[in-house]
């Protein structure tokens, strides 16, 4: 579908529809929060009923998500030892490989059998659909790393981790997308890294993105697109067909595992609709997790958990942060949005509309690690985290574009339009409003009861219900604490037992964090969108110690 995934140059009805959908999320969030505050005083009885509805929905959701967090974690743990390269090579000779696997000893452990069965199902699907993948040795990886203010240490950690992906490094082209407005020391740092690692890959390109190109905003997507276009020229020159190229757009602080590209190669090959899919690893924020203040650790562990849960629902999964996709699809749809801050999720929605709903995200059972925001001091880290979350929440800018696209599309089914539209809308509204309802508004009818309300059965029941819900939620919290202990990387230095316990107690900051570093930035972003106050891309502060 020819749909310009941008709000620029809109006129008349299109502009009106865009503004309506820009206002809708913020208006709904504010109405929910202020409406329930007002109701708490004006109609406490109605407010208390709403609180029960919200709290029950929240606790059900919490248990549901905790369940999938555990399942997702289990899957990740089980796939940890997989030889992805062997699997990818196996796909090169699909029929033989299937026969070998069918005859192979499946082991006594039911979990290993489960994994093998899942792998066989992938092969079966590939065979049935008849979408033969290119040979693994013909696949080329393009890695785009946008840089603007990141330190040499952060960039080098990224490139070094890619360089450890032997023996695939000779199939990898790294394109460092450097903003021309970057500071001189950043540019020098990039040049040193390029010089050091150029020989490690098939090629290492340094592409400098000039400022102020027509139609572009000062956003990461514009930089990545410019580099991807340069890479397209490079592949054309080398005679590499685009359908054999997998492009990954990495945040600068990304650190991949040594088998990341093997896993990506397999995922790309095993996907029958590989040119209509993005490949999403699980981003975890572990690089400097033990070097940041406790609240930042809790915030980002929560983000990692959220992504883990999201991967269990591929039908609704949307690309986030560092992700990969077919280069052919990227070129065909016109690269990343060049005027949007949330280019990571924007690219999925742009592709979904361009391919009229024939596009999806394939979750990869692989983590890649990024930095937790660290601005040096406690307070600056709070501010930096707030701005980062607000930038993430600015992903709400996709909602009006997606809805306009849905209104124009004739081929996307109504069911899919409603399903995706509702999830996008509900996700953002819940993000901004629910923490306020849980931690503040929900208690108002009980804290400031009118005389009339305090003489009702509901007043006593609501208090009891709220206490029961928070009791139950502490169970889920205990599960989350346990998961965080398993999932987080080992501490580099030994801490006394007491300090470990204190780390566990950090999770009790959740109610405060939910309001100040989750709901407030989200509400801030939605309010800005509501009033048409656009945001500029703001790069989070990240640093490495030592």
């Amino acid at each position, binding site marked *: 579908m020819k749909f310009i995934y941008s709000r620029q140059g809109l006129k008349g009805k299109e502009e009106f529809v865009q503004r309506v959908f820009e206002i809708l999320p913020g208006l709904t969030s504010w109405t929910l929060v202020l409406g329930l505050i007002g109701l708490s005083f004006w109609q406490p009885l109605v407010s*208390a009923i709403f609180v*029960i509805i919200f709290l*029950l*929905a929240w606790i059900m959701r919490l248990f549901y998500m905790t*369940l999938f967090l555990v399942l997702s974690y289990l899957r990740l743990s089980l796939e940890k030892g997989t030889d992805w390269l062997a699997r990818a090579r196996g796909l090169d000779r699909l029929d033989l490989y299937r026969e070998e696997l069918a005859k192979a000893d499946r082991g006594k452990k039911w979990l290993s059998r489960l994994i093998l069965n899942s792998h066989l199902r992938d092969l079966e699907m590939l065979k049935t659909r008849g979408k033969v993948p290119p040979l693994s040795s013909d696949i080329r990886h393009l890695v785009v790393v946008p840089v603007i203010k990141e330190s040499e240490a952060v960039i080098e950690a990224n490139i070094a981790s890619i360089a450890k992906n032997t023996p695939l490094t000779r199939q990898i082209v790294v394109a460092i997308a450097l903003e021309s407005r970057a500071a001189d020391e950043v540019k020098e740092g990039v040049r040193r890294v390029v010089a050091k690692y150029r020989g490690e890959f098939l090629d290492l390109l340094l592409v400098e993105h000039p400022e102020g190109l027509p139609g572009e905003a000062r956003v990461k997507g514009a930089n990545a697109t410019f580099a991807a276009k340069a890479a397209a020229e490079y592949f054309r020159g080398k005679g590499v067909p685009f359908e054999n190229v997998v492009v990954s757009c990495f945040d600068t602080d990304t650190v991949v595992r040594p088998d990341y590209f093997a896993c990506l190669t397999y995922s790309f090959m095993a996907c029958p609709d590989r040119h209509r899919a993005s490949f999403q690893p699980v981003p975890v924020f572990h690089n400097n997790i033990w070097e940041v203040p406790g609240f930042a650790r809790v915030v980002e562990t929560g983000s990692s958990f959220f992504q883990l849960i999201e991967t269990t*629902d591929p039908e609704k999964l949307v690309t986030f942060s560092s992700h990969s996709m077919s280069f052919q699809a990227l070129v065909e749809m016109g690269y990343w949005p060049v005027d949007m801050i949330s280019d990571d999720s924007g690219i999925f929605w742009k592709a979904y509309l361009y391919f009229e709903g024939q596009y999806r995200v394939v979750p990869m059972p692989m983590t890649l690690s990024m930095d937790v925001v660290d601005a040096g001091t406690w307070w600056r880290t709070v501010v930096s985290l707030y701005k980062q979350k607000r930038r993430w929440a600015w992903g709400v800018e996709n909602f009006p574009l997606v809805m306009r696209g849905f209104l124009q599309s004739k081929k996307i089914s109504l069911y899919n339009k409603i399903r995706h539209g509702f999830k996008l809308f509900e996700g953002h509204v819940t993000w901004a409003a629910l923490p306020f309802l849980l931690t503040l508004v929900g208690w108002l009818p009980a804290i400031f009861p009118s005389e009339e309300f305090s003489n009702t*059965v509901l*007043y*006593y029941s609501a208090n009891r*219900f709220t206490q029961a819900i928070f009791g139950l939620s502490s169970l889920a919290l205990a599960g989350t604490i346990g998961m965080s202990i398993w999932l987080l990387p080992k501490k580099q230095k030994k801490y006394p037992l007491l300090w470990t316990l204190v780390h566990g107690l950090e999770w009790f900051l959740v109610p405060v964090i939910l309001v100040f570093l989750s709901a407030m930035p989200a509400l801030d972003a939605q309010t800005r969108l509501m009033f048409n106050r656009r945001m500029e891309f703001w790069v989070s502060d990240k640093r490495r110690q030592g």
Partner: protein
Amino acid sequence: MIILRKILFYLFLAVYLVLCPLIILYALGYIFTPKAEEGFAKTGLIHLETVPSGASLLIANRRYGEKTPATIRNLLPGSYDVKIVKPGCRPWNRKVAVEPGKAVAFSQILLVPKKVKTRALLAQPFRELVPIPETRFLILFGTRQAGDIRVFDWKSGSSVPLVAVGSPLVHEVCERYFFSKGSPFFLLKMSGGKEGRYLWCRVDREKPEIREISDLFVRGEPAEVRWEGGNPEYLFALYGRDLVRLGLEKKSAASDFFTKIQGYGLYKGRVFGLRSFTMIRRNFDARAADPGTVIEKGTFLENLFRESGVYKIDFLSNDTLCFLCENGELLSNELPYHFVKEGVRGYEADPDGRKVLLWKTTSFGVLDFSRPAGKKELFKRGPEIDWAFDGGSDLQQAFFVYGTSHVLFRDQDGLFLVPIGEGGRSPREFLAKVLGNTAVFYSDKTGECYYLEPSRGYLTVLEVLPPEAKSLVYMFGEKEIAGKPQ
């Protein structure tokens, strides 16, 4: 994973869709009763909190496992006999009407001990107890001789003689005394001489300080003397309908401070007077030529006040005034202005000055200025007195207890406790016999009542509030404007 996720999603959704309405209905009080004639019924509940806590409950002769504080739910509408029992305490019985969807809350039940704790504080006989309101001092008269008067500090539990042993004043006889609330001064009129002697006593010192100020009373014995604060500069003495300002430092008397007044009151350095249906005001230190500021005038006040009436003006707060006429008529500057036609013997306000406890010979009631007026009333009516108790024989004093949840009152020589605000009249609990014809004093801060024991006249203290109730009362505090140790 997708299929599992879908199955679980629909499972969770189904559970939610079933649970949510059920929980809401239950929260509103609906239950399903197995009896065929009832089916779904909307119930009510009773919430009970006692001090001391941990009491057992019997509702409609059914014993409940919960101990107080407890909320008894799922009660079908109707009348229930509620009984609370705790070993060592008197049982608490009420008939409670439960309405559908409504909660009946008794959140401040004081369980009175079967044997009330009392102890003698001063083992010497006294005839008269005079508490200085809003201070920590009680003046105790053994006889009317100055040497037999003691000052008791209920906060520290110490007492001192008003006049030191060996003082020439020891044998002088006190004819009258005056005090003002919140002030640690006590004015004694002693017999002797032609017009008697006036002694100005400061009682918040280690040894009370006494000085004679008889020179100020050139017009003879006043009907009333009032002053304000911890270090007053002026006294205001009422002679007939004239108010005379007596300067303690300047030793002067301004005889024309206010003339022909029907009543006066002191508040924050100003004297307020009622004259010819006009409210006037002057600063304590106003010059003689200053006529005073008129703050209210007109026929409106003519309709409100009686020409022959003499009123005591009292400020409950910055905005609320009370006018108590000598015949017991009670008025206020707030709607509906007229509260009681006659018979009010006295009143006490809560620390915020928004609730007033007033008593007549056989009854007492509560006037709640904080209760908001009904929004849909065509005529603004203002608060009404809730007569919480009737059936006394000679009520002399009453006090709010445990915030404003109970009232302690002296009826003839008996001391009683009654809960208020429970809807309907509650029975009174007898606490102790006291010496008649003299005052008692209650402090909600200590939860103790001080009185003279009738057989020997000892100063005795009675524990009205159990220890766990006092912590709550401490949160609200008690007025103690003056009288703090220097």
